[in-house]
């Protein structure tokens, strides 16, 4: 189990994560939602180790989480220039013998022997996804994985994530589109003002939007402006 205890991150004067405590159960797909500036990306960056936290602990199965336990699909993907997709994938050494680049590239319709510079946004996302699949780590973080994907790959990703769950991975997904999370997540966690405000079970998913926007006056403002 991934356990986050009293995690705090302060940027200058601003406290972004405030003693955040969160238990992420294994073999489940966890959605993470929150409005802009709620601390979502900061939390993910802390879990992977991109960011140093000011206080708290992140534990995996009662020991300190290492970077080598986590694979992270970032929202925007950067690739080293003058490499082909296959050459990029070869950077990631893996003990995963069942990973076959050719079969994956066929399935995802990805020209892995072409230069990455010529890839579309969706293709780049697919390549980044393949790299984290190749690493085969215990905790998989997918930050906005559906951004820029075509309908077919979107569908494929929705099929792929539950298979990762079956293989015992702990999966954390963020998305701005509630619909894409509702379909695949076992739990959705709402982060607000630097803390996990509430965790929702599958049966409660329909209440999420109304709860998040309960105090929102957007409709009235829109009525007034239009």
């Amino acid at each position, binding site marked *: 189990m991934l356990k986050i205890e009293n995690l705090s991150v302060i940027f200058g004067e601003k406290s972004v994560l405030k003693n955040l405590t969160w238990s992420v159960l294994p073999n489940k797909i966890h959605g993470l939602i929150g409005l802009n500036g709620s601390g979502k990306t900061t939390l993910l960056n802390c879990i992977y*180790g*991109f960011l*140093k936290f000011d206080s708290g602990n992140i534990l995996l199965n009662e020991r300190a989480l*290492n*970077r*080598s336990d986590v*694979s*992270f699909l*970032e929202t925007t*993907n*950067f*690739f*080293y*220039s*003058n*490499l082909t997709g296959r*050459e*990029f994938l*070869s*950077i*990631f*050494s893996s003990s995963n013998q069942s990973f076959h680049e050719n079969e994956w590239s066929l399935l995802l319709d990805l020209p892995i022997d*072409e*230069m990455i*510079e*010529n890839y579309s946004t969706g293709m780049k996302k697919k390549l980044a996804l393949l790299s984290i699949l190749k*690493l085969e780590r215990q905790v998989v973080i997918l930050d906005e994985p559906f951004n820029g994907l075509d309908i077919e790959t979107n569908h494929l990703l929705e099929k792929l994530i539950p298979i990762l769950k079956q293989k015992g991975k702990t999966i954390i997904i963020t998305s701005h589109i509630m619909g894409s999370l509702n379909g695949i997540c076992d739990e959705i966690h709402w982060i607000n003002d630097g803390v996990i405000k509430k965790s929702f079970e599958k049966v409660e998913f329909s209440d999420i939007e109304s709860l998040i926007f309960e105090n929102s006056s957007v409709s009235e403002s829109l009525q007034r402006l239009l």
Partner: protein
Amino acid sequence: MGLEYLCLTLPVLIPMLVLGLYLEIILFCISLFLLPFFNFSLNINTFKIPNLLSFGIDRHNFEWIAGMRRMQFAFVILYSLGIVIGFYHFAGFITLGLITFIFSVFYEECESQFVLTFEFDSTKVFLINKLKRHILQYTKVSLPLLLFYFMRYPEKYIFYLPLLLIYYTNFIVFILNKYKSYIPNQKITSNRIIAGLAFMGMFLPYLFPISFVLCFIFYRKSIINLKTYFHA
């Protein structure tokens, strides 16, 4: 830009002035001022260049795979030149030094933070492994040329060994310069200036120690800079 080139080449120009090579100085200065008007960059998107020299490159050394794709023609020309000159004169060994400067171009681009950190948890372990892998790669590539010169001119080893030490040091400096200035996903331009200084160090004995000093300074600075990203 021309003026900057002129300042950088002062250690070459001053001895030329002392030797009274006035015509050469004028031609040299004109070429320096014309240099910025030429665009030497190649738009890789418009070409699909096969990486003919990718065999034998360790898959972790992505800088070499990408760099060889860009610079393979210059590399082959210089390498061949090194062999051809080697049949006539021992000083052809200098071409290995020039080839080393081609490799400096490999370290102008910074990888993403995920690629930087996915394999190792500690800054020192990362940097030592990086240097080991790349020095091994450099040795593999330069070995045929080295053996050729050592076999053809065995009596000149006194001349070759210090040069070889400088080439290796220059190569390490290029790698360390990348990591001392590392910012994820950015290009580093300072490598060209460092390469220029190291280049002059090859020909001017009083500039020899530059690379050695830079090696120590840059290693320390790389560790400090990378700690921002590794937190260890």
